[in-house]
């Protein structure tokens, strides 16, 4: 998934250590199903067969359902049907292979990307029928789902934490009460500017600080505003969200980046299940009221 992964079990048992060693195999399996950067992936096969009902694996089915839930949850702002816009913005290769100032189609105003909620699904047969012209890209939802699924599997050996490129799932509290999780300072990525006290929630960060590239004299990033089909023009550099579930936290963090700091903070505060910290391009850190209970202060 093009990201660093970490799995931890709060146990000293040998079987727990062996379980952790198996995590990379799970991620490789999920990558083969969900990555658009693997030509032979199940997702690419589905995207190439728009217009026909295609049976999919349980993994792809669950991630697609999580992506649809994220779209509904964010009022359509975060949706998995933006692949064409993402490619036009220049995100056509894994980010470690991204180079600045390469050729890219000029940004154009696209028709509003289709809603994944309108994609026909056969629940009984786990089949998906993409309309012609529609392609899927799961992005962060896939990472969040993978983190949650791995944490759930590892929980058989003890309280587990899985970090999939900054999307962090925990199965339950560790023996000492809470997992300490840092929030990276986007201006000094080698440092944290806060530490969170997480018991059983999910945490995710989205931002334009790292996934960006320069094309045609302007900076682009991968967070597309569905209203324009272009990289969102936003005053937010990063948004970190704590939610009951990591896929929900991931979608909420993207919402805050795309919507901008004022609307993003208002939206986070309107939902008592969400808490967040928004760091703006100018270096302000805006804490939602619900964040107080998660920030780890020295006693």
């Amino acid at each position, binding site marked *: 998934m*093009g*990201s*660093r992964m*970490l799995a*931890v079990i709060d146990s000293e048992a040998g079987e727990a250590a062996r379980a952790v060693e198996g995590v990379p195999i799970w991620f490789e399996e999920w990558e083969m199903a969900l990555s658009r950067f693997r030509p032979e992936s199940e997702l690419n096969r589905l995207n190439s067969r728009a217009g026909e009902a295609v049976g999919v694996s349980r993994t792809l089915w669950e991630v697609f359902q999580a992506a649809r839930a994220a779209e509904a949850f964010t009022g359509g702002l975060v949706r998995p049907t933006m692949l064409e816009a993402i490619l036009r913005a220049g995100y056509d290769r*894994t*980010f470690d292979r991204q180079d600045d100032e390469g050729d890219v189609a000029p940004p154009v105003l696209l028709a509003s990307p289709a809603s994944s909620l309108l994609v026909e699904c056969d629940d009984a047969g786990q089949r998906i029928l993409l309309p012609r012209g529609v392609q899927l890209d799961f992005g*962060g939802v896939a*990472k969040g789902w993978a983190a949650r699924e791995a944490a759930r599997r590892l929980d058989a050996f003890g309280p587990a*934490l899985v*970090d999939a*490129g*900054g*999307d*962090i799932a925990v199965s339950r509290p560790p023996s000492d009460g809470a*997992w*300490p*999780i*840092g*929030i*990276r*300072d*986007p*201006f*000094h*990525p080698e*440092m*944290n*500017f*806060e*530490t969170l006290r997480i018991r059983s929630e999910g*945490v*995710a*960060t*989205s*931002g*334009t*600080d*790292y*996934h960006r590239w320069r094309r045609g004299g302007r900076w682009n990033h991968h967070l597309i505003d569905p209203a324009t089909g272009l990289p969102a023009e936003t005053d937010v550099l*990063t948004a*970190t969200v704590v939610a009951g579930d990591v896929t929900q936290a991931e979608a909420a963090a993207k919402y805050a980046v795309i919507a901008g700091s*004022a609307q993003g*903070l208002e939206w986070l*505060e309107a939902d008592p299940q969400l808490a967040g910290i928004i*760091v703006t391009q*100018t*270096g*302000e*850190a*805006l*804490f939602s*009221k619900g*964040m*107080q209970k998660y*920030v*780890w*202060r*020295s*006693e």
Partner: protein
Amino acid sequence: MKKKPSHRWLDAQVLIGTLSVAASVGLWRLFAAAPQPVAAGAPPVPTASPTESAPVSAQVEPLARLPTTRILLGGAAPRPPSFDSGGGPAPVTSTGSSRP
């Protein structure tokens, strides 16, 4: 035969005369100056009163002059990212934009 007055006495007389004229002219100017007219109903000279409230200006300061930090929608006071790891123990991991 009258004794001729001395020069010293004449000098004293001239000096006394000069001083008298100067004093007369000075006192004349002092008392002959016309009194300042006071118009009926003229507004009093404004004076500051400690009990008066300061006048309120309706002029709105341009946004550009506001401080750069803002409080948005009830969030805690904004602050620039501090460069310590916050309180608590060393983190198990960190969240941030995904990196390879």
